[in-house]
């Protein structure tokens, strides 16, 4: 029993952990500076917006959906907050309003997906274009700027770790508790795995779906605020591309695109893996054109390893 349990423990560690360790070792051998504490602080600092977006993506993917508009929501949050500030709204109030807008966008997506049984990919893709256009309209195309010391409050360090990393940690705890401890969490998993069971249990699946998208919207709003504090300006295109990375991170973390299987803890590892690869390639001075190949290759390899191990487990 004991010997077996050790094996079990090894088996139960998600493959992404091994990839993560392997990458860190490889980069450390190539460039010893990689192992400095400041560099790991950089990695954490840099991954915060993607991390919180990936939590939101995980929730949506657990409902067997996908959200291609997360980037647009982050863009609009950075733009709207600064735009409101330029109109005279105090920055913290503007931040609050932007997060509420992000939640509303989530509700709208959830409504379309549930009421008209539309594919989430299409709904969110349409939403991405609409929201991105609004962001561009508000800024007149360029970025907009409002001077404030408030942004930098989040890059200040408390207990060794930058403040925005604490925010990401708080978002993780919230998401984790929501998924594990609340009825909504159970309903979200059921939506992905077995929606009929919800109806049988007397739960309105549409309403659960809208709540799931609203929660994801809230997280994305917070991700937008963290992005705002990083670029200190309203940037209408800043998060483009991160919507795909958030899906990749979720899948790397072991969440299945179907059947409502997976968890948000794995997503953290997925995001860290992506960030560690990008940071390592920078530090080792890999030319930019080869970086995309390397990132793509490593991410694919990780997902393939993941799939192989999962299918072997299923057979055993």
């Amino acid at each position, binding site marked *: 029993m004991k010997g077996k349990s050790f094996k079990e423990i090894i088996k139960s560690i998600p493959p992404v952990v091994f990839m993560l360790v392997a990458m860190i070792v490889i980069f450390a051998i190539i460039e010893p500076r990689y192992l400095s504490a400041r560099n790991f602080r950089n990695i954490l600092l840099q991954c915060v917006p993607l991390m919180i977006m990936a939590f939101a993506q995980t929730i949506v993917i657990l409902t067997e959906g996908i959200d291609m508009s997360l980037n647009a929501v982050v863009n609009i949050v950075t733009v709207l907050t600064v735009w409101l500030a330029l109109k005279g709204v105090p920055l913290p109030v503007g931040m609050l309003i932007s997060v509420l807008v992000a939640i509303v966008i989530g509700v709208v997506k959830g409504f379309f997906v549930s009421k008209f049984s539309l594919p989430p990919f299409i709904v969110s893709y349409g939403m991405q274009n609409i929201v991105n256009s609004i962001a561009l309209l508000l800024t007149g195309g360029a970025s907009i700027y409002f001077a404030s010391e408030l942004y930098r409050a989040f890059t200040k360090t408390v207990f060794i770790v930058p403040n925005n990393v604490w*925010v990401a940690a708080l978002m993780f705890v919230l998401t984790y508790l929501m998924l594990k401890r609340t009825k909504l969490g159970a309903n979200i998993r059921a939506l992905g795995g077995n929606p009929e069971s919800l109806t049988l249990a007397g739960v309105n699946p549409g309403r659960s779906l809208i709540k799931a998208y609203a929660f994801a919207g809230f997280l994305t709003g917070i991700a937008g605020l963290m992005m705002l504090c990083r*670029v*200190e300006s309203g940037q209408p295109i*800043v998060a483009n591309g991160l919507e795909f990375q958030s899906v990749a991170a979720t899948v790397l973390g072991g969440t299945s695109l179907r059947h409502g299987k997976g968890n948000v803890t794995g997503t953290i590892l997925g995001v860290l893996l992506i960030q560690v690869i990008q940071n390592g390639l920078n530090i080792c001075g890999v030319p930019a054109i080869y970086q995309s190949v390397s990132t793509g290759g490593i991410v694919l390899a990780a997902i393939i390893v993941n799939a192989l191990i999962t299918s072997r487990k299923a057979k055993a």
Partner: protein
Amino acid sequence: MKKISTLIFALLLVACLGLTACNSGTTPAPSATPEASTEPAAPAETKEPEQKSSGLSKATVLDASELPITGIGTTVATEVKASGDYKIGYIAKNTTNPYMNAQSAGVAKAGEDMGFEAICQAPSTADSVEEQVRIMENMIEQGCNAIIVHCADSNGIMPGVRAAEDAGVIVLTIGTPAAEDTFLRTGVDYYETGYTIATEMAEALNGEGNIIILEGPPGAANAIERLNGINDAFAKYPNIKIVASQTANFKRTEGMSVTENLLQGNSDIQGIIGANDESALGAVQALKGAGIEGVLVSGFDGSVDASNAVLNGDMFETYNTDPYGSGYIAAAYAVQYLNDGTEPAGRFIPFPTANNDPLINAETVDGYINGNAWFNALQ
């Protein structure tokens, strides 16, 4: 639902309290602007891109003999030599544009010629300023003495610039400047490029005609400056009419489709200006497809395809924005400073300028393609 909404509300409240607490606890950095975060007297003018850079130094246009390098394009050379082991980082905007790759090659060549280690990087998501900041932070960690960056956005790059300056690393920008003056800005003055090209076209049309403008990406500051230059130049010619001004996102396919669509509505067109060569080449294809001849098409950058189009007579003109030489000259200024603290003559020294005869048209194209064209560095 109730539980969750209560939770969210409580969290927002906590977040707000936390924010204000953090704010009052931090001492303002010396570079901080005097406005308090909640001050409603917001500088509304900052929305205008031209005024955004009003705090920046004006261009100091130098004679070719006053520059630390000689030549233009692939003929650049310098006497400057590194007197120590320097690491100089270069951050492009993307890897999908030969222009950026040539700039990278210019910095790499400078490294060979002057004797420093050149580290050339670019964001994996094209034009992501957030990723550029990440790369800057990583370069500081890597021990770079100077960082040359082609900013994807003026304001967005500032956290990276501050981090570099705090670490004692000098920052040089090419093209789009940072929101505050850095050690040096070089590369072309986008406004001037737009103004020069549009004036040239207006003169060739004898100050009369219908024009289509294919704008750059809506979020890109350089495209907006260039557009302002174009519009200001045409404003001087009352009989030049801009019949349409739409974005083609710097892309050939979009330049083609947008032009095709616009030609449906206005077939009486005398000139088309693309905000870069790619969109201009799209317009050339659309004109050919529609069987329309005699329309003057202008672009910017002096790329391979555009130069050949000028040679064939498909395009009227393009502007040699020499990314290769821009990267090279930035590195030369950085090395001079690292050697003995030599400051440049200004904070914005454009290169190339009108002094360098940047126009590529029917007269100059032959010498350009077979001579110093920056793209010859990529082959």
